[in-house]
């Protein structure tokens, strides 16, 4: 009975064709595992451009780092300059001494620019002399002018 079952089973397997003889596979396995054809350790050089692609992905170009570094440095410099300007203005505005010094320096600069090098001095008798005479001198001038017209 058992032999008959095996026979039928083998016939079905033959018809199915799914099981190769063991010795065939033994040969294949031997071949796979021989030292000449050791597929586990087979070494095949990869394409030459393979490393360049990998390297580009794991190490982004340095120029981008530098560019980023320069940009960030410039931004920090801008912020530093703004802070210095704000501190200077606030200190100057709220400290009386510094404020006066600042205003004086500005004023002096304007005055120096507008005045002649030799300071102008009023005559000493202008304030001490009779104001009437000065008025007279002032009012006489048209008379003399009128005389001359005559």
């Amino acid at each position, binding site marked *: 009975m058992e032999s008959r079952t095996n026979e039928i089973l083998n016939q079905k397997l033959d018809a199915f064709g799914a099981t190769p003889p063991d010795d065939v596979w033994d040969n294949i396995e031997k071949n796979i595992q021989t030292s000449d054809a*050791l*597929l586990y*350790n087979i070494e095949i*050089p*990869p*394409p030459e451009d*393979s490393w360049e692609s*990998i390297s580009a992905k794991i*190490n982004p170009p340095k120029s981008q780092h530098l560019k980023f570094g320069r940009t960030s440095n410039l931004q920090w410099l801008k912020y530093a300059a703004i802070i210095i300007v704000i501190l200077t203005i606030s200190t100057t505005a709220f400290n009386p001494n510094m404020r006066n010094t600042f205003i004086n320096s500005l004023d002096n600069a304007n005055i120096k620019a507008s005045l002649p090098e030799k300071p102008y001095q009023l005559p000493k008798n202008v304030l001490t002399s009779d104001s009437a005479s000065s008025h007279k001198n002032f009012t006489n001038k048209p008379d003399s002018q009128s005389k001359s017209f005559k």
Partner: protein
Amino acid sequence: MESNLFEADSDIVEGCILGNPRMQKALYEKFSPKMYGVCLRYAGNEDDAKDILQDSFIKIFKNISRFKAIGSFEGWIRRIVVNTAIEHFRKKNNLTAFNEITEEKKEDEAANGLDKLEAKELMAIIQSLPNGYRTVFNLYAIEGYTHKEIGEILNINEGTSKSQYARAKIWLQEKIKDHRYGE
């Protein structure tokens, strides 16, 4: 079979952890030929093999700090490459369609000319396997995984892994026969 973490490897690993490009290239030059061989076995063509190799090494460099020098460094790299190859075919949905393969006729003759096959010729024959068969064949016959492990890796039944391996054997047998008669 696999090298342990020699002192030279240790230097390379430390250099790669620090992001030293020279050490990264040294690692690539040391292991890429063998790993490209693995990629070619799992891939059906050179373009796919190249993609798998690139993705694998990017993963290796990104995760190299996680490597613990207890086991084999080459084994760690190989596992990443094999996993990447499997992911690659999962993305392409190439690990299905095993049932579409036509059943081969039984070949009574033993493949007597097998010992004349070069490794590259055998590699080419393995590459000609349908994707699903090739993956199971690689994992079982060459990498040494069990059918249970393959079932877990590929998310298929253990029985499916066994049947696919059997069919892969038939396919290989036919191809080897063709190769022999073609000479």
